[in-house]
């Protein structure tokens, strides 16, 4: 069974300190996988590194056993909702259409088929009545659904989502998780950065627990234990953070050539 995402010694350094350190895991396909950890534990960074938005300083990742470049059309990224200025002059339709640019590239025009896919994505997230609405006039939950529709329009096999449930009303959250589950049932793999421990067990069958380093990874039933959660959320490893501080202050390289 081909893994969905694999990482090897994945390390990203910000301002001379590692944000994620030596992340090593292999994730299955066809599951909803949660990535969780305390604030600043590098969850967004991990997604961005896998997505190629940030270059890892050390290590690498593979998607479906290949380099990201070769399978880009199979991977879809849903950024954090607040990473974008929603005051931008665009309609709901315009944003979802961006999902088709992944295959169309910079220049190719959108075809009837593309239009159909956009409409279909909009209806899957129940945003069809808002198709021509300005994105500045949307609520938080509606904005998140637009992002989701954009990702759906890409028709990918792997979806990386950064905190899709933040600032979203309960009804929308329900709708989204239902949609994700149906996507999973259709064979898609979903990697979701999440913040709420209370819903984690319900949403995710597989989990990655992160605190700058990998604390645990595996089926939820195995890793969602008191000990592991304590280790994840109970503060940083003091020695590890001391080493990180020395790296930063003295400007040491992490690896030698």
């Amino acid at each position, binding site marked *: 069974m081909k893994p969905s995402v694999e990482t090897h010694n994945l390390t990203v350094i910000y301002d001379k300190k590692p944000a994620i350190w030596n992340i090593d895991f292999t994730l299955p396909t066809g599951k909803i996988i949660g990535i969780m950890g305390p604030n600043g534990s590098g969850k967004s960074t991990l997604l*961005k590194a896998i*997505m*190629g*938005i940030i270059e890892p300083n050390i290590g690498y990742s593979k998607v479906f056993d290949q380099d990201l*470049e070769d399978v*880009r059309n199979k*991977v*879809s*990224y849903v*950024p954090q909702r607040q*990473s*974008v*200025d929603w005051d*931008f*002059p*665009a*309609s709901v339709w*315009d*944003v979802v259409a*961006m999902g088709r*640019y*992944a295959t169309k590239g*910079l*220049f190719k025009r959108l075809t009837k088929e593309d239009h159909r896919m956009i409409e279909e994505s909009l209806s899957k997230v129940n945003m069809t009545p808002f198709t021509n609405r*300005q994105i*500045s006039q949307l609520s938080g939950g509606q904005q998140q659904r637009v992002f989701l529709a*954009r990702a759906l329009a*890409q028709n990918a096999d792997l979806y990386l989502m950064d905190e899709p449930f933040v600032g979203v009303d309960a009804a929308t959250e329900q709708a989204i998780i239902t949609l994700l589950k149906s996507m999973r049932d259709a064979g898609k793999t979903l990697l979701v950065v999440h913040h709420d421990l209370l819903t984690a067990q319900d949403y995710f069958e597989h989990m990655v627990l992160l605190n700058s380093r990998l604390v645990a990874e595996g089926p939820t039933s195995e890793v969602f234990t008191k000990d592991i959660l304590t280790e994840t959320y109970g503060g940083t490893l003091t020695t590890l953070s001391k080493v990180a501080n020395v790296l930063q202050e003295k400007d040491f390289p992490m690896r030698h050539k």
Partner: protein
Amino acid sequence: MEFLTEIWSFFTFSEPNVKVVFWGSLILCSISGLVGTFTLLRKRSLIGDVISHAVLPGIALAFIIGQQKNPLYLIIGATITGWISTYLVDYITKHSKIKNDTAIALILSVFFGVGVLLLTHIQHSGNASQSGLDQFIFGRASAMNMSDVWLFSIVGTIITILIVIFFRGLSLLSFDENYSQSIGFPNELLKLILSITTVTTVAMGVQAVGVVLMSALLITPAACAKFWTNKIIPMAILALVISGASGVLGSAISYTYNGMPTGPWIVVVVSLFAFISAFIGRKNGLLKKYLQRSKNNTKILRENTIKLFFNPKTLGETQFSFEDIFAKSKMQRATLKKGLSLLKSDKLITTNQGTYTTTSLGIEEAKTIVRKHRLWELYISKFMHLQPDHVHDDAEGIEHVITPEIERELEKELDFPTKDPHDSDIPY
């Protein structure tokens, strides 16, 4: 009157120099508005200011090295230092503890300072008849010649073509850089295109409006366009049109009297457009908000006044003198008078020697508003679990907001009730 004749003679190209300045400012300013749209959307307006100031040392250096004021060399010099300045701002922000706005202030002042230094040096060296570089600080549009205009046209066309071709990528980059990267768009190339077109536009534009005012010409048209449209393509086109029009109008105004500088007038015109748009613009305009609020207040006054005429016993016609209705209401005298005249002009009441009587239209209207009030009271007492004595104030406000559709939904949801929380009848 003379002002108008001069404007007329400007637009009829009665003078060849006028024709040159007309085309030169039209092209320069239009390009500036187009390129500035992306600067604004990417929230890099301050960078526009940095570039404007940073072109000065490039122009001075080009002159010192080339020893002649060939406009092409000067534009190349300006483009180089302009581009270096943006690169430095980004580099410093990324690789040091210095924040973006500090880096901007730093680079802007350093580059401008070096520019002034070099200019002063040139001034002292006595090559004044060949330099005239001082004019770059405030622009000298009136001295444009045909070769300038040709240069602007060619470069302007290239810039426009680039932007049109890459419009999709540039828009996505401006909206969601992370997503753009994730779908494999060539972000570095797109950023390079934007920065080169911006810097070149500034390098050309400073000849008309000068270094100090250039950033206004870059940003203001796009900011103005945002008050009229919520779509990116119309916004870019509108910004181009507004800035081009400002270029032409500013030049025209500067033509009406002797000794008037063209560059500053262009900036005054475009700023005026922006102020007016902020006020009357279709999207987010202040005037629109004011008018809507005024409309709301009129509706509220009308409904509150007719409410006073509601007859709970007969649900029919009522008649009051002014003092009686005034005693009943909680309004000020003047407000009540205004409300009554509103009702009269809407034919909801008639007046006869100081007495006000409801018409059949008025009776219906009063019943409707009371019904809405009581339905709402019932709704919130049921679904918000409020006590009967807590629902009145809320309903006082909301009764004006309930549309006929909402009213029908309320009736359905409450199962066509007959009594409100105070046990009064709901009039149908």
